[in-house]
């Protein structure tokens, strides 16, 4: 299996899907030279009718993605940082997410929106958000958050072949991370979680940027005799409830780790699934490790204080495992 960086795997998926289907086009600010590297080389291969720099106009870019589907295109829209999703939110929330239902199912919406998300780089409050809770709340938008190279490629290819609008949120801090990518036409379905690590004492449900620190925490906990099972959701819409509940049935304890704010974040939603449908399995309270209800501060020491990390995850796990043992 070839080893590819996370960002290269996304680039590979774009090349392959554009080769496969001439109706796939890519638009966005600076996609031609590729500020994140994920669209690099596409311009030389496919030219200006398949990939094009847009002006800085997020509100129009998102609306255009919808409009171009009417002409039969599958639009891959790159929005750079997830914070700029807010700038282009009207067409996402009022048009794309609702158009299919409002029109009685008349249209297909083959739209894939890519954005980098997350903190850790001292990029400050307007370049560090994870926009997925807002997107999850819209209803009509699928949201993939790959944690590794293989999933990044496979989920993006699935998104591009889908007639439903999807986001692929890139974990900005993971762009350089290497990983094995299966040969051939590698597709990963939406709504199918992966068991990133097996364990019997506690379930850690996580996604995207938080899978790595969750695995690091699980490793440290293992040395203390606590075996954590780590579930990588891969997509938060649709969400693999069965995988969450099956693991919970096995371990009886749940920690949810997510890089979004606590209030109405993805973690609260997952905890609600456990409370509602997995209550009989629970031997301890469900704990959430996420971002407090603050803007991401700039200074590294202050940013680190609000972002989840392996240590905070391990502390949360110990809190519910030892409580029961005691």
């Amino acid at each position: 299996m070839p080893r590819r960086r996370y960002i290269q795997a996304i680039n590979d998926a774009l090349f392959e899907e554009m080769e496969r289907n001439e109706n796939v086009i890519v638009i966005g600010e600076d996609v031609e030279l590729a500020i994140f590297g994920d669209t690099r080389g596409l311009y030389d291969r496919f030219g200006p009718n398949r990939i094009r720099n847009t002006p800085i106009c997020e509100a129009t870019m998102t609306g255009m993605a919808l409009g171009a589907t009417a002409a039969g295109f599958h639009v891959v829209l790159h929005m750079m940082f997830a914070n700029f999703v807010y700038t282009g939110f009207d067409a996402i929330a009022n048009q794309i997410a609702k158009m299919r239902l409002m029109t009685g199912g008349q249209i297909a919406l083959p739209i894939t929106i890519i954005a980098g998300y997350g903190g850790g780089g001292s990029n400050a409050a307007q370049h560090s958000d994870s926009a997925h809770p807002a997107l999850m709340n819209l209803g009509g938008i699928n949201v993939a958050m790959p944690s590794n190279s293989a999933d990044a490629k496979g989920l993006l290819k699935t998104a591009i072949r889908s007639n439903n609008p999807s986001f692929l949120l890139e974990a900005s801090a993971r762009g350089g991370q290497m990983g094995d990518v299966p040969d051939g036409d590698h597709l990963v379905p939406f709504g199918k979680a992966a068991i990133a690590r097996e364990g019997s004492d506690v379930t850690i449900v996580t996604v995207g940027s938080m899978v790595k620190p969750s695995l690091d925490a699980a490793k440290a906990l293992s040395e203390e005799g606590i075996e954590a099972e780590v579930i990588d959701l891969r997509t938060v819409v649709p969400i693999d409830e069965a995988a969450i509940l099956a693991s919970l049935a096995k371990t009886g304890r749940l920690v949810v780790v997510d890089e979004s704010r606590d209030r109405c974040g993805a973690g609260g939603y997952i905890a609600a699934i456990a409370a509602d449908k997995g209550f009989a399995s629970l031997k301890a309270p469900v704990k959430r490790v996420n971002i407090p209800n603050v803007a991401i501060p700039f200074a590294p020491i202050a940013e680190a204080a609000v972002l989840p990390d392996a240590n905070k995850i391990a502390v949360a796990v110990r809190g519910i495992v030892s409580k029961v043992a005691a």
Partner: protein
Amino acid sequence: MAEANVSHNQADYLALLRRMLLIRRSEERLSALCREGKFPGAVHLYIGQEASGVGACSVIEDRDWITSTHRGHGHFLAKGGELKRMYAEIWGKREGICKGMGGSMHVADFSKGILGANGIVGGGFAIATGAAFGAKLRGDGRVAMCFFGDGAANQGTFMESMNVSSAWQLPTIFLCENNGVSEFTISSTVTGGKLVDRAKAFMPTVIVDGNDVLAVQAAVREAVERARTGGGPSYVETTTYRIQGHLEAEDAFLGGGTYRSAEEISAWQQANRDPILRFQAFLTGEGIADAADLAAVEQSVLEEVEEAVAFAEAGEDADPELAFSLMFENQEA
């Protein structure tokens, strides 16, 4: 260069020079220290555009407002922000002008009317328009100046803000710094028509040599007078050039690609185009200052920059607790 200004004395001229030079030298220092990894995060430098910010801010008062951009250090200093507090901010220190919570892209000093650099391109249009609306309601003669790039002018809020400013005759000054690029995109490839023509539909406009500090000053003075006396908004476009990359160490993001030539950059650095070299030549040519005067300005600027570096480096790390206490007034997050 524009004509000498009859109302200026030597001190006025040297003050303009000093402000421009302070921006230039402090940005050069940041460029070098960035490469050494001396502070966290990214910086977008203002080198080459100094005459635009300094000329424009030289004709407004402390009580007037500006909104700035991701390339905001120059505007901050031009409006009278303190270099050492800005550096401490960029270093993520407690002594920073925003206590280390905002960093380079968010330097702000509300006490000096600096409503903040901004990480959202086009984020300043409506904020400046709102401040101008407030001034209009109060009738106190204050003005709001919105700095923005040619790239930002493609955001829809540009038109929306010009419309409100014009319909209600607000004291808004739209100060477009046209450097021809937005990130790695040549603006002309994504821009229809001329930016100035967009503004013409709403307000008086002028395009000025943005590397001529006196020309910028004269153009903006007229706009400010109009705004203060109830004459409504104006659009001033300064033609200028960004010498540094979009952000420092941009090569790491370009992956070997290029979007402009080395010749083009160097042409803008020549004595006949560089805003500081041009102004220095003007001052000596007109007999306003001699080499010793210029050397004294240079010396004092270098000292201020070194003091600011020392101040920032000696600062204490930001207080992480502030993330919780600063979200609201008298309310924990």
